[in-house]
């Protein structure tokens, strides 16, 4: 059976010592790769080898390694989050590769996500977008009764689909224009669809779009590359909802 034997690959990876340093692609041979390894585990093995040789390990971000935290964002052989559809790069396994493969690994190359080191980028612009959406402090008390706030089942599902966004930044990295509309669309949608999010929805749309423009993200031209790569399969219908929320807020709110 293909892929059960251990094999070797060459990893061509972006090395950049610091935010202001120039970077370049560097090739490393990784031997004894198990097909059962995840892609990040293969990088761990490579880093072990580098440490043993006294080299600086490759910096990359990862946390949960189960596809729900949004930390690990890499461009593998030109595919955002690797070749698997709607998946994060931590869910990519080495069985997808063959002996002798040359694997190109790059960070998100987005103006609003500057490289900190090697494959690690600074996605704090996303945090500022979230903050622009506003927040409230409420003493929540005990868990509320189920159904005390009635929500349509379909709306709840749609809100949940939008809330599935893990903020990994793949939408921006894949966008020909570097737009963050899918991210902001998801964040606006998850609240606009629910009664709890209704009181602030107009302000939220206006403020988040203003923050998005300020952070230097591009303009969406509806190319839908973001939807194609999104690990959580967030739909571009959320971008339309963001457009709608913003335009209606601009025309009909008192702001």
């Amino acid at each position: 059976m293909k892929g059960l034997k251990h094999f070797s690959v060459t990893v061509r990876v972006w090395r950049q010592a610091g935010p202001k340093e120039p970077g370049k692609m560097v090739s490393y041979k990784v031997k004894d790769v198990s097909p059962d390894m995840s892609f990040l585990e293969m990088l761990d093995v490579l880093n072990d080898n580098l440490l043993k040789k006294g080299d600086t390990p490759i910096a990359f971000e990862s946390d949960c390694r189960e596809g729900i935290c949004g930390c690990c964002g890499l461009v593998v052989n030109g595919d955002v989050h690797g070749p698997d559809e709607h998946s994060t790069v931590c869910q990519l396994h080495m069985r997808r590769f063959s002996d002798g493969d040359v694997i190109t690994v790059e960070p998100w190359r987005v103006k609003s996500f500057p490289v900190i080191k090697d494959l690690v980028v600074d996605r704090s612009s996303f945090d500022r977008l979230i903050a622009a959406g506003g927040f409230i402090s409420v003493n929540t008390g005990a868990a509320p009764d189920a159904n005390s706030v009635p929500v349509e089942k379909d709306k709840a599902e749609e809100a949940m689909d939008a809330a599935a966004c893990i903020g990994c930044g793949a939408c921006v990295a894949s966008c020909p224009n570097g737009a963050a509309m899918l991210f902001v669309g998801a964040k606006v949608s998850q609240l606009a669809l629910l009664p709890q999010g209704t009181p602030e929805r107009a302000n939220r749309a206006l403020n988040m779009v203003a923050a998005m423009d300020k952070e230097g993200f591009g303009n969406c031209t509806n190319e839908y590359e973001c939807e194609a790569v999104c690990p959580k399969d967030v739909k571009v219908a959320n971008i339309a909802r963001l457009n709608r929320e913003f335009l209606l807020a601009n025309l009909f709110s008192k702001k």
Partner: protein
Amino acid sequence: MDITFIKRFITTSIGRKAVMAVSGLLLGGFMLVHLAENLLLFKGEIFYNGWVDFLLSNPITPFLEAGLLALFLAHIAAGTWVRVEDFLNAPRGYEARKWQGGRTIGSATMLYTAAAILAYLTYHMLTFRFVDHSMGFYQMVTGAFRSPVFVAVYVAGAAALALHLSHGMQSAFQTLGVNHPKYTPLIKLGGLLVALAMIGFALISVYYLAGIDLKSAEAGYQVVIIK
């Protein structure tokens, strides 16, 4: 007076795109009317020139023409602004980059087809609008359509327009927030049909270039449109 909301149409990304979308949809509608008018060529010289006279003698026409110019300018201004910003903000420097199937030929070439349409539009104005019309509009149009060079440019312009609209029409709806499981497939289909209709401009010009009207007149046939 608070005009923040008007400012937002010009200064925010979504506001600018809404301007581009609304003007684009109206221009698309204009192109369909324009095509319908070109089909009037088939009704013959007297009818066609009569129609043009009716248009030109109508006191509303100059205002409509000014409105049309404003639509073009708004569309071009908003589009240019969006694209300049996108050029500045685009992710850059990927050694390997694969598109994942979201892009279409139409969407990936919007900027180029826009430039081609603008170039064609300038040519169109110089050859049909700002010229001596004393020979009559029917003679002017059909005469131009008998020139292979003119028709080649005309067909290229129509092709660029079709490609532009293949993305633009449905994109405008998305930008205006219209996305619905029931209607979006219909909107996408409708957008493609409008784009396809633009080939009609090319077909009409080729009809005259090939001299089909003359040949059928010689053979005693006449194009008759049933009223």
